[in-house]
């Protein structure tokens, strides 16, 4: 099957995956729309390769093409895919089935959906073995061993569970166990940790790495998160509009990109601790091309600052730089130096004003048929004019509940107080006067559902303006125009309905709506999580500008610590409804930290390489309905002190003025231990005593 034109070197013959000039189109209403335009790359056995890109770049399509799982209207127009020398594109159905059974396995994005909800988990894993010919009894034993191999603590019990009874992390481990059953030559992972909590994501990524070292399988990882790619992959291919525009060793590519798109992507990420006060994030002008559109020679030309005549007419070939598989498709690699960082922000330092919002002892307990679920416990918080408070935490941390309580969507338990300026806030939004409703507004996570799909953007804004401010007629239009201008929306955009707007544009309308009544406080719940990386940068810049102009305070909820570090002046870390640590951003990031914060910081997959200390927490996040005794974090804490942490709730200690945390360990001790951890190259994990204490108390049931 290999070309006879030139003798192939030994290594290429044995490439686990070799994609040669693959072009693929989807036929929609009779018209073929190109999605992949000549993709070529190769993965050797034991190597891990990442395909990274934004929506519509074709990375998932490539992965699914490699396993021949394509919709009926997908047509491979050119090229071939070789797995260990066998051309996948030419296989018949039975051959494809054998191929999937023995040589390739896949792990997917939403593990809960990837498992059959009406069958127990164990038999599904065992099925991967029976398919290979094992008897039912042998398969069961193999399945249990497989579950153990993916670090599931109690495989026999998990075997008997249904998928909905397991947490996201456990589900993904089960899927990985299934994938490894056949000892495949190629393992494809499609966004395997998107949607998992940070600490869970870190342990799953670790698992993948260790398994890969064991099995010598080739790994193809699809992700939009550059940090994940950097953590797992040896090499990376950056995709844009169906082409690989740059390829090479992951560390090298991210350190010194050699393509304008890669550079733009990296610069739009809040990296290396830059802050909004230093400089706005770099954005890539224009927007992502539509899937299947016809594009000029260089697919990136419409948005590239370096573009010249030749870029419109001649498709840049992959130019080999420095050898070693480092290529870039650009005519102007030598001019990369012209691409400068955005200029430093002048006078962006937000002067913090008066106290705007204060919460004292706010708790919220949900009552669900029999159980009481304490979602928030004794929260004290302050928010000043013009500052951004970042709220960080994983599932069950209570950050969404806190946002809802502040907004009045949920009412706090008796005994808690919310104060806006000098007066108490009504418990429910409906009870609050219009002035208060104006003062606190929200930007939602999902722009799809946040805007009424039947209304035009103009109507959405106009209604909010008139309802919140009481303005009428021309005054309303004037304000709508001003809001649009602030968020860089054109008149044409205003006449459109949400389904005709891209994700980024929709979110801008949503933000404009929140600012309709000139609010004091805007609660932003994961405002950029649903957006592509390059779009995210623009939104963050806009949010920052609006804050300076209007002196608005933000309560920023995010799981992305990079975003929080960029935008937030102060940070609060939450776990199981309680605030574990709060302080100024720089202080929190510098340390010393609460052990949970420490673990969180180390869990984030960093695009610049490994974080300073490696901490891997065992166990699952406990269910809020059944919180552990004493310090709620003790069941997973890598600095657990037996006899103290599970018995007594920790006091509030001050690290420095404005920086507080709840821990039994004295500040200086923490400082010393954490400095030591950074220097040594050890992995800290939850000690066995903590796990035993958790099991004994029975509070290790998954959330």
């Amino acid at each position, binding site marked *: 099957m290999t070309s006879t034109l030139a003798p192939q070197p030994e290594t290429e013959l044995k490439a686990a995956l070799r994609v040669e000039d693959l072009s693929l189109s989807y036929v929609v209403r009779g018209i073929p729309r190109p999605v992949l335009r000549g993709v070529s790359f190769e993965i050797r056995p034991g190597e891990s390769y990442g395909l990274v890109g934004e929506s519509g770049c074709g990375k998932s399509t490539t992965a699914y093409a490699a*396993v021949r*799982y394509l919709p009926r209207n997908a047509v491979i127009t050119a090229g071939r895919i070789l797995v260990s020398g066998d051309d996948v594109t030419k296989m018949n159905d039975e051959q494809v*089935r*054998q191929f*999937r*059974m*023995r040589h390739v*396995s*896949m792990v*997917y994005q*939403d593990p809960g*959906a*990837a*498992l*059959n*909800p*009406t*069958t127990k988990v164990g038999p*599904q894993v065992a*099925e*991967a073995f029976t*398919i290979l010919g094992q008897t039912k009894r042998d398969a069961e034993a193999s399945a249990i061993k497989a579950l153990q191999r993916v670090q599931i603590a109690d495989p026999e019990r998990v075997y008997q569970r*249904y998928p*909905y009874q397991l947490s996201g992390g456990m589900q993904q481990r089960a*899927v990985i166990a*299934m994938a490894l059953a*056949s000892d495949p030559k190629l393992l494809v992972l499609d966004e395997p940790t998107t949607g998992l909590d940070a600490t869970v994501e870190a342990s799953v990524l670790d698992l993948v790495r260790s398994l890969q070292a064991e099995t010598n399988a080739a790994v193809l990882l699809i992700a939009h998160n550059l940090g994940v790619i950097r953590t797992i992959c040896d090499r990376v291919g950056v995709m844009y509009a169906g082409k690989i525009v740059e390829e090479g060793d992951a560390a090298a590519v991210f350190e010194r990109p050699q393509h304008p798109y890669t550079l733009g992507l990296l610069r739009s990420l809040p990296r290396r601790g830059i802050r909004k006060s230093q400089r706005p994030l770099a954005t890539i002008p224009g927007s992502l091309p539509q899937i299947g559109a016809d594009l000029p020679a260089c697919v990136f030309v419409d948005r590239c600052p370096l573009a010249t005549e030749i870029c419109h007419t001649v498709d840049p070939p992959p130019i080999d730089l420095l050898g070693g598989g480092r290529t870039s498709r650009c005519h102007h690699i030598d001019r990369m130096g012209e691409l400068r960082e955005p200029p430093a922000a002048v006078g962006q330092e937000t002067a913090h004003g008066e106290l705007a919002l204060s919460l004292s002892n706010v708790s919220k307990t949900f009552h*669900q*048929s029999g159980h009481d679920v304490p979602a928030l416990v004794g929260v004290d918080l302050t928010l000043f004019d013009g500052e951004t408070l970042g709220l960080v935490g994983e599932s069950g941390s209570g950050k969404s509940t806190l946002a809802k309580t502040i907004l009045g969507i949920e009412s706090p338990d008796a005994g808690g107080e919310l104060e806006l300026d000098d007066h108490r806030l009504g418990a429910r939004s409906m009870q609050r006067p219009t002035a208060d409703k104006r003062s606190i507004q929200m930007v939602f996570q999902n722009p799809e559902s946040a805007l009424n799909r039947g209304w035009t953007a103009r109507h959405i804004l106009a209604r909010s303006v008139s309802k919140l401010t009481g303005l009428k007629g021309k005054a309303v239009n004037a304000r709508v125009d001003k809001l649009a201008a602030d968020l860089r929306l054109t008149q044409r955009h205003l006449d459109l309905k949400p389904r005709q707007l891209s994700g980024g544009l929709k979110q801008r309308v949503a933000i404009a709506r929140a600012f309709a009544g000139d609010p004091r406080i805007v609660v932003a719940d994961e405002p950029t999580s649903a957006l592509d990386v390059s779009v995210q940068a623009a939104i963050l810049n806009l949010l920052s500008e609006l804050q300076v102009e209007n002196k608005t305070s933000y309560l920023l909820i995010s799981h992305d610590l990079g975003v929080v570090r960029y935008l937030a002046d102060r940070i609060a870390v939450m776990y199981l409804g309680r605030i574990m640590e709060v302080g100024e951003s720089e202080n929190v990031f510098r340390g010393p930290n609460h052990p949970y914060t420490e673990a969180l910081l180390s869990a984030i997959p960093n695009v610049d390489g490994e974080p300073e200390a490696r901490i891997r927490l065992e166990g699952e996040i406990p269910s809020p309905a059944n919180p552990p005794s004493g310090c709620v974090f003790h069941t997973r804490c890598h600095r657990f002190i037996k006899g103290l942490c599970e018995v007594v709730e920790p006091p509030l200690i001050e690290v420095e003025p404005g920086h507080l945390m709840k821990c039994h360990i004295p500040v200086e001790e923490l400082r010393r231990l954490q400095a030591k951890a950074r220097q040594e190259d050890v992995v800290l994990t939850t000690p066995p005593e903590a796990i035993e204490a958790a099991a004994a108390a029975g509070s290790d049931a998954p959330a």
Partner: protein
Amino acid sequence: MARFIARRLVLALITLWLLATIVFIITNVLPDNVGRTILGPFAPQETVDALNERLGTNRPILIRYVDSLRGLVTLDFGNSFVSGKAVLPQVVGAVGRSAKLAGLALLITIPISIAAGLYAARRRDRTADRAIVLLGVTLSSIPEFVTGTILVVVVGVQLGWLPVLATAPETADIPTQIRFLLMPAIAMAIVYFGYIARMTRAGTIEVLQSDYTRTALMKGLTTGQTMRRHVLRNALVPTVAVIAVQIGYLFGGIIAVEKIFNYNGMGSTMLFAAQHKDLPMLTAGVIVIGLVYMLATLTADLIMAWMNPLIRMDTER
């Protein structure tokens, strides 16, 4: 699971009570003079008054309501205006006979419809699929008495394959009975084909697009294995619900079929009662059929909960 069943039973009882109340309202509150309604506009006033006296319709509404509820609980639905005999045994007997016909109809339609639905889902948007959907829509639009009529004309009279009257001779054995019931059963089965096939198709399409079907295929399972082990169980859940609902409609359409084929089931009994304004008989019939429907949906719920543990979980929380 036990809690799930208990909860459903309690809800069913409430529904039954509401059902009886609605029927009471229709028979006792709507007409301003029950006696007059029964005897018609030409009967002399004294006869009407005597009848009202006998039926006790002069008593206050609340007392009559409590009485009717009491009758419901003690299973005493009163006596027929026509025959004077107790109504309930007659109704139950008639329902039993109709159940034979309905049962045969379901036996014919369920396997064929489900098979058609699965077939259509696997060949989605292709000719076979469009044809099946079109066929389903068309067939379920034709009232049973129309199909019955056409069948009688074509199969019964012109071709003479099957007997035109549904009632077999008394001493007939099972196969002969089935032969007699076949045409009316087919007339009914045709109508329900559309609903069941389309619901199966919709459920199957959704499952085929799910991530766990993808997982099964990616493990290397054959199409057949995937269908059997992963698809069917999940796809058929909504179909079970539809079948239960159709059972309710079944006993409506059966009236027309029984008239055409001259079958002495519940339909004919009810029709006769309607023509003779036999209110107790009609009331009993409505309630008994309502009960049958509720039993069907309850059974369907249980089956669905057994098939899909997520349904169980929803109510346990």
